[in-house]
């Protein structure tokens, strides 16, 4: 109430003052929204444009205007502002950064900030306002569909599970293709635990001029994450929360238990399941396993932050708690994290700050095996009439030999805990007007505890594994920056010295033979057999970097950098590498012939070149490490085992070095109609050489592998981003960001001039040893192997038995042998796209994110398994089995269901290759903003929202969904669907409160 009175009085004073006060001299300071003063702001008297001034280096100004006059402020990158003088003599004015995407300030790494219009490299930037209306938990979710050239795939629907991120394709074959993550200047191992609410902006460095400053770790692109900090002014407390519920997008159609039973008898050729039982099942009973495996899963999130600052100190502290059940039974996830970012201006020359982050996440529960589980005996319910488990099929030999699928998730225990601490400090010292010295030091500590217990109820055996792993990373970065004040010849130069160490150690305790299940992995000493294993690795990196940005007449922009990295992972003589880069940009629109053009408001051409590296090798890769584990211990007396030390399985290669990627990038940024439409297009071409591959040695050599720098891979493509303000009126505006990425990946060279290498997982090794994927020269990194399925022999066929599958005889020898396995598809999309549509209607906001991929194949082994293929004792559960060929149902897509029509080729055939293209409404939110309607009770802003994720997925793919995959983070066996964790459709409601 006090406040209202004050505002009322103020209004009266202003109203009257308007008439009474005369021209006077006014002084003041201009601040940005971050509390920093802004130099160079143009301030004019609105009624007399010839009367103007510019703020000085510290953002101060002095101007004489009439006491009832109006100041008009303008500065590039900020929204113009008008301020009524209203008789004041001292005015502090804050300016808001402009919405025009071209004026955004982009973080480019190592302390450098550049306006988008001055950028020479290819960098995508995402600010918190881009994703604030989507209830996010993870950072990678924010990146999804929002940055061209950045493929973000949700490989698993498990809550808290990581996303796969590839920037402009995969460079390495078996090495790490994850981008480098830098949080507030500190390199971190992963971003799984970081709170999306703490993020101010995310920059993705894509071309080599942007990434080369990260030297031998920059090749896969760099993700720079900047967290929030407090702004000068009154303390701001923000509380946001949402709750919701998830379900799998779709279940897979299966037969009824009685249809399943008939299929069993058809396949076995005998009445395995008596007709009386089938008749009984027609009236109910049995099990549709998906109904037991999936559930609706609630989730909730609450986030509280407080921020603010005084003249010298600013702070941002936050806490976040997220809890979610998985849509698959008996699994859940929770995460808790805290952040404190504090900066202090100790003097006008010295500023220091600290960023602290600590988190714990827990991933609990044994996962049901969806591959074999859904295909388990449909005639046996999980429990009998007394509520006891039916551990095995009621009729032996139906389904498969595995125990009843609910036994493992309901009785085994799994607990994975991840603790992460990221802490950094810095000191920024302004030596003089031109030179600044910045020294920072940081620690990242990641502790993982993975515990699991197998209950005796599942297989009759008990066993527990507890693994503790500790990783600690130290980093020190020292940077000297020079900046001149010449606008025609603007120079900024940096010299950086950086050093890092990373140490990891682990201990694994395995135990088996527990006499009781009651204490599980919490009491390993109850096990009759106990073993331990331990290990440690260490790595060091020392680097020097020089970088120069030069802007000539604000039209021609040049950036050049060179970085030298020395890594302990390589042998002496191979430790140091140099990574140069250069880029130029021409702001054509600053030229006289384009200046003030009615349509083209901005045009910039960009070109860059650079070399980056990837130290894809693990520590100790260049030396031979003897085998020490229980796998080498032998019981000479038939009792206690004697400890063995075996020669290394790997041949040492002291010549190993990093993988090197050379990248060219050409692009342009075009702004039309006052830059309300912005088009960015980048063409790139990358070549990665010295790719580390394991050459397989014949067994008689002894060591089975040697790692060599031999592979070559090319990626080329185009990234397109189109930002448009489609409609803008006071109460109604529509804006859209569309991006499209097309990447072509091509393997140029493999080991020893070989054309192909088998590097992916063997998904069915106990049945069929041919790997479903391989890496082939002239093709993308992963391509699918299999027999070409050409339909089904029909009645009257002279070439084959009616009802049997037709496979293409590639070598024409008249027989279908493993020689006829060919390439039947690949999992790489032709292009991916994302579209973010934002509509503001009065106080409502509607935000939609569409996303899609086109042209990728999926090997649907889940369907194969559900068709009862893969092993002779499997039986079909999939509804497609009802369409099996019979004399009266001449199907050309599903062969006959009899035992005779089975062959060992079926599972690995193009019959199970499906088009994985899709279009999805990834997210849609509707927000209502109460704005200051509640300011009476001290609430500055109040928003409520409702959100839906994966509201639809349009696809021809017949599995759970075309997004989740068994391939995880691998690039050598893309697009395999078997026992994947389906992604979910979820609905949530929440609010956002600021006071």
């Amino acid at each position, binding site marked *: 109430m006090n406040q209202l009175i004050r505002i009322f009085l103020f209004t009266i004073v202003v109203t009257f003052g308007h008439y009474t006060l005369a021209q006077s001299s006014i002084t003041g300071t201009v601040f940005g929204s971050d509390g920093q003063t802004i130099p160079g702001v143009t301030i004019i008297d609105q009624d007399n444009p010839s009367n103007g001034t510019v703020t000085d280096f510290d953002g101060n100004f002095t101007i004489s205007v009439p006491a009832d006059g109006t100041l008009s402020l303008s500065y590039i990158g900020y929204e113009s502002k008008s301020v009524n003088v209203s008789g004041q003599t001292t005015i502090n004015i804050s300016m808001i950064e402009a919405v025009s995407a071209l004026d955004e300030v982009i973080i480019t790494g190592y302390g450098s900030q550049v306006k988008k219009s001055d950028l020479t490299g290819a960098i995508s930037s995402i600010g918190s306002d881009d994703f604030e209306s989507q209830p996010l938990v993870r950072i990678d979710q924010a990146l999804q569909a929002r940055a061209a050239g950045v493929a973000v795939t949700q490989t698993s629907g498990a809550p808290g599970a990581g996303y796969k991120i590839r920037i402009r394709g995969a460079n390495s074959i078996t090495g790490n293709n994850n981008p480098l993550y830098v949080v507030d200047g500190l390199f971190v191992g992963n971003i799984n635990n970081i709170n999306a609410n703490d993020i101010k902006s995310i920059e993705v460095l894509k071309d080599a001029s942007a990434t080369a400053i990260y030297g031998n770790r920059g090749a896969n692109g760099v993700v720079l994450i900047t967290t929030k900090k407090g702004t000068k002014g009154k303390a701001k407390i923000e509380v946001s929360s949402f709750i919701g519920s998830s379900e799998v997008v779709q279940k897979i159609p299966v037969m009824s238990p009685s249809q399943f039973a008939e299929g069993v008898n058809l396949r076995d050729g005998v009445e395995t399941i008596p007709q009386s039982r089938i008749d009984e099942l027609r009236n109910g009973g049995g099990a549709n396993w998906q109904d037991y495996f999936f559930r609706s899963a609630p989730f909730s999130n609450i986030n509280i932050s407080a921020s603010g600052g005084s003249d010298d100190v600013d702070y941002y502290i936050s806490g976040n708690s997220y809890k979610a059940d998985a849509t698959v039974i008996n699994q859940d996830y929770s995460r808790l994290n805290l952040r404190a970012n504090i900066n202090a201006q100790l*003097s006008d*020359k*010295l500023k220091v700050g600290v960023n602290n982050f600590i988190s714990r996440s827990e991933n609990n529960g044994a996962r049901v095996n969806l591959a074999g589980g859904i295909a388990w005996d449909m005639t046996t319910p999980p429990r009998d009439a007394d509520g*006891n488990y039916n551990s*095995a099929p009621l009729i*032996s*030999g139906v389904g498969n030999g595995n*125990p009843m699928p609910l036994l493992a998730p309901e009785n085994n225990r799994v607990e994975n805990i991840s603790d992460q601490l990221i802490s950094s400090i810095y*000191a920024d*010292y302004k030596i003089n007007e031109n030179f600044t*010295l910045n*020294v920072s*030091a940081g620690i990242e500590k990641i502790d993982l505890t993975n515990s699991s217990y197998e209950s005796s*109820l599942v*297989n*009759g*055996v008990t066993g527990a594994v507890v693994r503790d792993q500790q990783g600690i990373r130290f980093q020190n970065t*020292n940077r000297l920056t020079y900046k001149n004040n010449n606008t025609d010849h603007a120079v900024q130069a940096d010299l950086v010295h950086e*050093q890092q160490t990373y140490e990891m150690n682990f201990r694994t305790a395995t135990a088996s*033979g527990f006499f009781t299940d009651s204490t599980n992995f919490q009491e390993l000493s109850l096990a*009759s*057999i106990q073993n331990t294993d331990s290990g*440690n690795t*260490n790595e*060091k990196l*020392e680097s020097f970097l020089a970088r120069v940005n030069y802007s000539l007449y604000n039209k021609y922009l040049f950036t050049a950098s060179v970085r030298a990295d020395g*890594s*302990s992972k390589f042998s002496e003589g191979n*430790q140091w590498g140099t990574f140069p880069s250069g880029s130029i940009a021409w702001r054509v629109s600053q030229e006289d012939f384009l200046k003030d053009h009615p349509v083209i408001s901005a045009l910039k051409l960009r070109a860059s070149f650079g070399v980056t590296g990837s130290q894809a090798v693990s520590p*100790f890769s260049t*030396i031979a*490490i*003897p085998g020490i584990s229980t*796998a080498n211990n*032998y*019981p*000479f*007396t038939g*009792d*206690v085992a*004697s*400890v*063995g*030390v*075996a*020669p290394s399985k790997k041949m040492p290669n002291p010549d190993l070095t990093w993988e090197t990627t050379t990248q060219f990038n050409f692009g342009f940024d075009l702004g039309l109609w006052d830059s309300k439409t912005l088009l960015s297009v980048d063409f790139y071409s990358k070549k990665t050489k010295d790719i580390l591959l394991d050459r397989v*040695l*014949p*067994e*008689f*050599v*002894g*060591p089975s592998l040697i790692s060599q720098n031999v592979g070559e891979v090319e990626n080329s493509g185009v990234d397109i981003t189109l930002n448009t303000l489609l409609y803008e009126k006071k109460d109604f505006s529509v804006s859209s960001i569309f991006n499209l990425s097309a990447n072509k990946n091509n393997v140029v060279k493999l080991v020893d001039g070989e054309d192909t290498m088998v590097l992916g997982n063997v998904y069915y*090794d*106990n*049945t*069929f040893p041919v790997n479903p994927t391989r890496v082939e020269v002239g093709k993308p990194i992963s391509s699918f192997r299999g027999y070409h399925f050409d339909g089904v022999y029909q009645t009257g066929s002279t070439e084959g038995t009616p009802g049997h599958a037709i496979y293409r005889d590639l070598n024409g020898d008249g027989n279908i042998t493993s020689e006829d396995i060919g390439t039947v598809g690949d999992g790489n999309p032709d292009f991916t796209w994302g579209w973010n549509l934002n509509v503001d209607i009065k106080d409502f906001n509607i935000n939609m994110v569409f996303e899609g991929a086109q042209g990728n194949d999926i090997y649907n082994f889940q369907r194969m398994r559900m068709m009862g293929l893969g092993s*002779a*004792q499997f039986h079909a559960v999939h509804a497609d089995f009802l369409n099996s060929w019979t004399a009266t149902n001449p199907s050309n897509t599903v062969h006959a269901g009899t035992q005779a029509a089975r062959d*060992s080729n079926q599972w690995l055939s193009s019959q199970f290759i499906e088009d994985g293209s899709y279009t999805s409404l990834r997210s849609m939110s509707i927000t209502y903003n109460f704005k200051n309607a509640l300011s009476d009770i001290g609430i500055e802003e109040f928003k409520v929202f409702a959100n839906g994720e994966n509201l639809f997925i349009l696809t021809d793919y017949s599995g759970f969904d075309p997004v989740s995959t068994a391939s995880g983070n691998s690039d050598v066996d893309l697009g395999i669907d078997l026992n994947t964790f389906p992604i979910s459709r979820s609905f949530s409601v929440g609010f956002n409160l600021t006071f």
Partner: protein
Amino acid sequence: MKYTHKIVTIFISLFFVFSCSDLEEDTSGILSLDNLQTEGDLVAALTPLYKALQYTYSNPHFMRTNTYGSDDITTWWGGNKAPLRVFDQFNYGNGENADINWLDWDWVGHWRTIYYANSLIDGLKTSTAAESLVNSVEGEAKFLRAFAYFQLVREHGNMPIILDGMIPTGNEQRATVLENYKHIEADLLFAEANLAAPGSTPNVGRASSAAAKTLLADLYLTWAGWPVKDDTKYASAASKSKEVIDMNYHELLPIADLWLMENANSKESVFSVQFSSSEDQRNGHPAAFSFHMARGWSDCYPELQFFSDFPDGARKDATFVTDIPNRGFEKGQITTKNPATIPWEESERFHPMYKKYTLSEDLTVAGRSMGYRPVEIYRYAEVLLIYAEAKAASGTTDASALDALNQVKRRAAGLDPFTPDASIDASSATVIDIVDEKGWELAGEHKRWFDLIRTERLEEAASNRDPNEHVVLINQPTKANYIAPIPAEAIATSNLVQNPSGFKIQ
């Protein structure tokens, strides 16, 4: 404030001076094999050689996928047994089916033994340990290397020769069978001279001089048969096996007790692969030799013809299970269903099972028929039969040779091996009689295949196959089926020539 700046500047400058010293990896946590000094060092380096053997011998489909063609075993017609059927049905012989599952298990395992043995023997050259210790460990390494080569040569044909002191590149070519026999012989001659006498150490699992002599006798017997057919080697086989007999250490156990768990490492065992209950190092044979209804995997069971030809008596009862256990699995426990057993003719696989491996089964371990009994590689009965056969083949059969045969026959009848019994004893015996006796005695012990090809009787055995076998022959075997293909991956990564064109005898 002025001073603060200076202090800060100094502190900040310190960071530039502080450096992570050097870029060397800290390898102090990694053990080196180059410096073998104490007995402990030597045993630690020897252990993985035996472990590699255990890896190969833990399951019949690991050790002998490629010898399923012998007439004492067949496999399930369904399930995941396709690779085993390839060999049971003779669906190979021209380089095809080299890429099937499990074919490379024994190949990988035996080469692993050879690699470890070569590394160890090289390490011993600079060892400062006592000479007698070095020699006995070298003897063990050479024994195990010889055994690995012997298996490889008999299964896949002539091998490239990779011995200690060589640095193989992968470009090596296959030697001849005869050349392989010679380096195997050299290794065994060293081993028999340097290994401890049987029973002289408590480490029952380690090779003795008797084991080396037995393997040497087996080598000579093989050398005298197909493919090298140097019949002068029968005399060597006889004298080596006689040396083992004359050690007077090994003896035959009563047949009904032989396969009990408590008779593991008895005096009948010359060399066996160890497993351990206390370390839960499991022997997969009981599950492999049990049907699914008995909580096994139905990998391996006797052929019908072999079973019906098998002479009745105590040995037949001790060899086969004819009432198949009818088991279930509930609440983590193996249960017995009603009826508790089902006659083999009506059982789910319509065959008997081998009791040799199921007698020692442990049903409490893993919901499957599991075991920890050692797998016999050589037992004394075989030594006696090698001696009898070598004497007969060299035309020098005498009383001692007949006695060796009769000891086995008497024991098979449930009698004392040393008490002559006119109803049992043979007064004369042909080579074929003795080989057949060996077939019954060592049924299912992974020996029959080698005896059939050595004596060139595989074709005959296959032609006797019972027509009621569910696994039907695809081809009648020929000499091309005597040798298994070399695994496809090894052919692809080397210059080795696939069988049959790469098969060179001498």
